[in-house]
């Protein structure tokens, strides 16, 4: 049970119950598509008439569409409902130390175009360059008016309320605004998030709906850094200041509070660079005194 926050709450209106039922219907369609109205009514345990109204609203909103007509032994032939993903498009941007990747994809994450270029660390130049690339990509693929937004992931902590990148050591960005500036430069809504967290959102929302992704899970990527996303009760855990799950700073051994990284270098001896704490790979971990 969730305690009601008396400083931040939503009062129910005349449309609230229908809004909720419509969203439930949308998710049931997503999980069982293609699905007929009759089957949807059975899944929701509500009448055909109410389902027809909800479905019409979803069609009007452009989030589902009616597909092929099905066969039935008797009565009217049902039309099957599908989620609209293939013609709803987004730009995905992955900013990493070495490269910045820009992808045009649909709402199921299917790739339509992908480009990579060297990451620019100077923020103003980064925005200018990236917005040019995005506009060019949309023009090339003729999707200037159908792209619904830009999602940006960065290796660092992001405050969801302000969109501010709090600290991205790999990029040298601290207290940097990308979201609003990129939105202004491209005219599209921009969402920005820590890359590990965004990956857990993809696991939750873009996996095949019948793949039964649980309500609570942890997503961890280990490559040249560690990305962590924690999902509890179907929701991303962000924490009070949006730094929950910063795995790099956890103590790996009891009594050894801080770990430093040794970089492992080929073609010579192991080269020690005690730089950032507990990023896992090509590395050994050397306990040091906590500061």
């Amino acid at each position, binding site marked *: 049970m969730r305690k009601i926050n008396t400083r931040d709450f939503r009062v129910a209106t005349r449309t609230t119950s229908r809004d909720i039922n419509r969203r439930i219907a949308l998710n049931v369609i997503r999980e069982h598509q293609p699905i007929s109205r009759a089957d949807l009514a059975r899944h929701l345990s509500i009448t055909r008439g109410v389902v027809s109204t909800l479905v019409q609203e979803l069609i009007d909103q452009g989030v589902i569409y009616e597909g092929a007509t099905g066969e039935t032994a008797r009565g009217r032939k049902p039309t099957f409902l599908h989620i609209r993903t293939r013609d709803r498009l987004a730009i995905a941007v992955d900013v990493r130390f070495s490269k910045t990747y820009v992808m045009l994809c649909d709402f199921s994450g299917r790739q339509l175009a992908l480009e990579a270029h060297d990451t620019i660390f100077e923020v103003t130049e980064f925005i200018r360059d990236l917005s040019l690339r995005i506009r060019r990509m949309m023009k090339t693929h003729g999707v200037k008016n159908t792209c619904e937004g830009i999602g940006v992931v960065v290796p660092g902590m992001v405050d969801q309320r302000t969109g501010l990148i709090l600290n991205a050591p790999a990029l040298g960005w601290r207290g940097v605004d990308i979201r609003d500036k990129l939105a202004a430069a491209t005219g599209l809504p921009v969402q920005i998030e820590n890359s590990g967290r965004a990956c857990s959102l993809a696991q939750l929302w873009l996996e095949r709906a019948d793949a039964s992704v*649980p309500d609570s899970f942890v997503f961890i990527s280990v490559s040249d850094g560690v990305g962590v996303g924690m999902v509890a009760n179907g929701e991303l855990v962000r924490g009070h200041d949006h730094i929950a799950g910063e795995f790099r700073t956890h103590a790996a051994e009891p009594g050894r509070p801080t770990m430093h990284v040794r970089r*492992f270098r080929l073609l010579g001896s192991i080269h020690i660079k005690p*730089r950032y704490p507990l990023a896992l790979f090509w590395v050994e971990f050397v306990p040091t005194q906590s500061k």
Partner: protein
Amino acid sequence: MSQLNPNSLRDAEQSSFTVLDLIARARGGDAKAIAAIQATARFLGLGLGTIVNIINPDCIYLAGEIATAWDLIEGTVRQALAERALTENAARTPLHVGVTQESFRLRGAAALIAAPSFAAPRVA
């Protein structure tokens, strides 16, 4: 906070040696590479143990280049996880490995735009 100095990593000399190179070395029998991978696997397992104790997830998804070396590190990871986990059930938390495609972060970026149209409305 000194260790999170934003310029530290950027100024660090970048090696062209990648995680995949390291895994290839380990498969070739390079002792240093094997040691590095096993050390990483141990700390990964200990880290997973801590996370499991904190939020007790249904399962863990593991992605990134390290997933391609899962056959080398699974034993070490699971043992370290079991050492840290508070109960036997926690130690047996399923680990799903295999999100190895390079674009998984980009899919995450796409989810930022796609997911809100499916999410539950906030009520009360």
